[in-house]
């Protein structure tokens, strides 16, 4: 897939170069016309590589993201909440599946993406390295983490790569359902007993800043943004999306009766937006480096599930091979 890098390219082949120029012009024209690139269309290697990185990282995040919420399925405090939480975590597995499938259309197999995740060479959203010590974290994850994901992902429904854009349409619908469920958990807690209200406020205190950092570093420090925007994979900058999210949160926090832990938060009449305080990017980088509370735990859990399941996957392959042999033998007999 990455065999055609320009650096150190073999001897010139004018016919191949001409074909590549035509393909490149076609790709540029589709992007300029706001069209969709489909799996069989020609595309620059770097575009393909960027998409595989982004889509597999997104799929990995869904899969790792099952853990912090899975943590509360067996302890959910009512049967209705248990059912809703199970359905939500199941949706996340489903999102991981469509995203891996969409990424496979670019020529990288799910097995390769899984191996990269387990080897620690592919990333997942750093937010899932934070722990979920209380039930209110189920509300805060839904409201803040899924809320930030939606703001990030709605523009991806218009992403230039067709399979990714189409997968995102369905994912965004389900995410928006999850966000409302999270809001509703927090609202119930906020209006509940004093201890429940405090539990909700504590969770919001812990998840607010990490959720703002989900949009990535400030635009000036973002290494991938400019090229992704030129390719129309990304439509808005990190800071634009973060601002949109903060503007959305403030009135919702008021409705919840909870405060946002940000001394810098105030309406800026001139900008027509809320100002917000500085974020602790040193913490963000530390968690990215693996120094969050749960980095090692999340990856170890995923590796263990994969290793524990190896004998099952081997059995399914062995059974399928036996069935194929039997089918072939039956066909031979019936043909004879």
């Amino acid at each position, binding site marked *: 897939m990455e065999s055609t890098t320009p650096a150190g390219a073999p001897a010139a082949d004018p016919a191949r170069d001409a074909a590549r120029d035509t393909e490149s012009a076609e790709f540029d024209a589709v992007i300029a016309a706001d069209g969709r690139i489909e799996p069989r269309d020609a595309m620059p290697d770097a575009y393909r590589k960027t998409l595989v990185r982004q889509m597999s990282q997104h799929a990995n995040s869904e899969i790792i993201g099952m853990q912090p919420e899975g943590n509360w399925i067996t302890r959910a405090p009512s049967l209705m909440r248990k059912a809703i939480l*199970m359905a939500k975590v*199941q949706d996340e597995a489903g999102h991981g599946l469509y995203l891996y499938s969409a990424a496979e259309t670019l020529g990288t197999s799910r097995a390769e993406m899984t191996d990269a995740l387990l080897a620690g060479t592919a990333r997942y959203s750093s937010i899932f390295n934070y722990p979920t010590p209380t039930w209110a974290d189920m509300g805060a994850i839904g409201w803040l983490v899924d809320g930030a994901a939606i703001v990030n992902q709605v523009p991806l429904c218009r992403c230039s790569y067709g399979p990714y854009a189409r997968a995102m349409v369905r994912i965004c619908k389900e995410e928006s359902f999850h966000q409302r469920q999270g809001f509703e958990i927090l609202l119930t807690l906020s209006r509940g007993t004093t201890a429940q209200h405090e539990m909700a406020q504590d969770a919001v205190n812990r998840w607010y800043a990490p959720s703002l950092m989900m949009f990535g570093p400030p635009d000036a420090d973002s290494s991938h943004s400019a090229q992704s925007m030129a390719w129309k994979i990304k439509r808005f900058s990190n800071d634009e999306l973060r601002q949109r999210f903060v503007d959305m949160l403030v009135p919702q926090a008021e409705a919840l009766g909870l405060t946002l832990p940000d001394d810098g938060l105030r309406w800026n009449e001139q900008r027509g937006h809320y100002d917000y305080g500085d974020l602790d990017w040193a913490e963000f980088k530390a968690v990215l480096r693996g120094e969050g509370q749960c980095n090692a735990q999340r990856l170890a859990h995923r590796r263990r599930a994969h290793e524990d399941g190896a004998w099952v996957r081997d059995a399914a392959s062995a059974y399928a091979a036996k069935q194929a042999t039997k089918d072939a033998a039956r066909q031979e007999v019936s043909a004879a």
Partner: protein
Amino acid sequence: MTSQAATQQAATPQAANGPATDNTSSAVDATPTAADSRDIAEYALRLGDDALVLAQRMGEWVSHAPELEEDVALTNIGLDLLGQARALLGYAGSLTGRTEDELAYFRSDLEFRCAHLMCLPRGDFAATIGRMLVVAAYQWELYERLSESADEALAGIARKAVKEVAYHLEHARMWTLRLGDGTDESHRRMQVAIDDLWPLVDELFRTDELEQQLASAGIAVDSSALRGPFDALIDPILADATLTRPDVPPAAGGGRHGRPSEHLGHLLAEMQVLARQFPGASW
């Protein structure tokens, strides 16, 4: 999708004054008396606790499955069981003045009525598939008959459940074949799984006076009558999967009568911990 269905489970108490089915030889009036209502609630709790405890075990699988497709499938099965549990506990509660959550979170292990098989720890994937095969086959036979119950509420719950457990049975059957007739290792694990759970199978098919009375009124299903059809369903699957049907003595059981499995207390300690920290709170 399933979470929307999950919110529709408040099984409405039926006046149970519908026509009695004519296929009971004893012409018993199926209109429950007050005593009948308590018996029906007890019967609904047995079925509901089976579903609830097994749903809890399925919930333990989330994010641990051998592949993503199985994470989706096992959770789906867990959600079906949880939906059945909510309908059955909701109905039992409507007859005795309690909510589904009071029944699920504020009864002790001595007050649960589930069979011991449901309480076994989740074990490996073979143990989960083996139990799912047995339970789904039993529930399929049960719910198919219960959908004809003279009690409209039970019949309605059963009519929905029978479609769900048909899928659970098919899922378990396919995996039993793959694991039983897959590799040497998977065959060994699947046989161990069946051997380990087999002593607990018998309890599912034991009947008692309460069930017999309700069965003669056309309300409940006589569990002892299900053993033959169950064996006829399971035996060919085990044979196709190259597995040996164990020949072991049945365990004493007692789950239906307040003699719970040792495993149940631990399961409830985890399931009930948060609800019991905040008694009376809404969630």
